[in-house]
């Protein structure tokens, strides 16, 4: 009767299996360092331009939106606070993660998917390499280190964007803007601003690799895997974001 639930439960079970194996491998030899650095370059350096742009424009948009509301209360000097809190808590982590999901979860799924359908993953196993250790774990480590860094950069550039609006349109001085922007941040904000990208990075790498290595059915299968990877990693990012926010709000 509940047969329709079977495939998703089975998929989730497989996902847990693949994930626990990849996470366990972080603490197990051998480590493929050159693969880790290569992935760091692809994920970190490769995503830097686009995440900077997004940070910049979201800072500007936040400042513009808020300046109107704040002016009605004569509180436009507090625009720095609002920009920095929204960026650090929400927009920075979530937007960066969604971009990196679109860019890299899809990249991982299609790369591993092509390797799967061309028997390269079987060849790897035949030659004595654990595909999880060689392919999944480096992507996991690279994402988990690079996404928090990218988020910090996006946050900072966003705040500069906010300052650009505050100084040109609201006539705030540099110290008025930056003092309020810095002082409003508490440990709570910084903690969730860093825990979020860390968690999102794990989602991106595991979901992307998971759909990659379970690809079947030729080129079409690779396409499906890529779509699934982006859709599900984005969805999980939004869900987990809500959960983490809920936890921090209660502190």
């Amino acid at each position, binding site marked *: 009767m509940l047969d329709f639930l079977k495939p998703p439960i089975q998929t989730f079970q497989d996902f847990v299996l693949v994930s626990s194996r990849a996470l366990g491998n972080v603490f197990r*030899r051998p480590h493929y360092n050159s693969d880790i650095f290569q992935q760091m370059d692809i994920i970190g350096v490769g995503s830097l331009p686009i995440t900077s742009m997004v940070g910049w424009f979201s800072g500007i948009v936040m400042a513009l939106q808020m300046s109107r509301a704040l002016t009605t209360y004569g509180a436009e000097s507090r625009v720095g606070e609002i920009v920095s809190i929204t960026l650090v808590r929400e927009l920075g982590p979530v937007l960066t993660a969604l971009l990196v999901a679109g860019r890299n979860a899809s990249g991982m799924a299609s790369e591993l998917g092509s390797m799967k359908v*061309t028997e*390269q993953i*079987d060849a790897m*196993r*035949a*030659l*004595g390499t*654990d595909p999880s250790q060689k392919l999944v774990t480096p992507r996991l480590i690279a994402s988990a280190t690079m996404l928090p860094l990218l988020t910090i950069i996006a946050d900072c550039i966003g705040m500069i964007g906010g300052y650009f609006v505050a100084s040109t349109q609201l006539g705030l001085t540099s110290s008025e803007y930056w003092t309020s922007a810095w002082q409003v941040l508490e440990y709570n904000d910084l903690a969730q601003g860093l825990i979020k990208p860390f968690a999102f990075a794990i989602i991106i790498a595991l979901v992307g690799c998971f759909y990659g290595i379970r690809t079947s059915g030729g080129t079409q299968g690779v396409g499906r895997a890529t779509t699934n990877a982006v859709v599900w990693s984005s969805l999980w990012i939004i869900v987990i974001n809500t959960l983490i926010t809920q936890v921090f709000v209660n502190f």
Partner: protein
Amino acid sequence: MGTDSSIVRFEDVSLHFGDTPALDHVSFEMGAGETRVVFGAAGSGKTMLLKVAVGLQKPDSGRVFLFGQDITHLSEERLFDLRARVGILFQEGALFDSLTIADNVAYPLENQRILQTVGAGSEQRSIEERVVETLRFVELEQTLDKFPSELSGGMRRRVGIARAVVTQPELELYDSPTAGLDPITAHTIISLILKERDTRNTATIIVTHRYQDGQLMANFRYNPNSGEIEAAPRGSEETVDTKFLIMQAGRLVFEGTEPEFLACTDEYVRKFARPGAS
């Protein structure tokens, strides 16, 4: 290792994908230095036979022995040691397309070094030498720094052979090494396989669609003096130790030497026993 001297042994092995049987109660055995030529229609389970033999695919039932060891339920980690003694040419080549030809051929060697965690340095040098030597064996030493996508199909097949033989394994599995190649290149590839088999007396399983490949495997041998392949005398080791296996819809419908194969009256088997069959 016990008293079991077989290299590969299947005991009533079955494997299903949904309702399709990929392997249906297959049993056979081969000893050291022997050759098996596997024929069968598309989808008859030839590739699965090879994958199950090295534990890349677990059977649903039955038992599989590799080098005398029961691998039916062996964990992936434990299988790595056994697989290091096997060379495999995959049907589609399965070269790592992000690595150069040299790195592809070096991969099994590097990997064995990583797993044994031996110090680098002095080892590095000999890996390079062995890679060049092996690529010379397949006559491709000029392609070291190219990527697989820059080579022709026949060249990629030869790189695949180089990667399979570089570790000097005791067992070689070749999945359709001549499929889709012109007769001349196909002949070159079978000559390479004979050369590998006869210089080190490697146990060999070859899956093929070409009648001629089986003829060559059964009746020819590599002559190290002339560097050419030549007809093996009747009754010599090569002809006696070569058996033909015919697969049909997952079942092993025939197993026997070449004369038995040619004399077989079964209609399906006879389709593979005449020149020009595909």
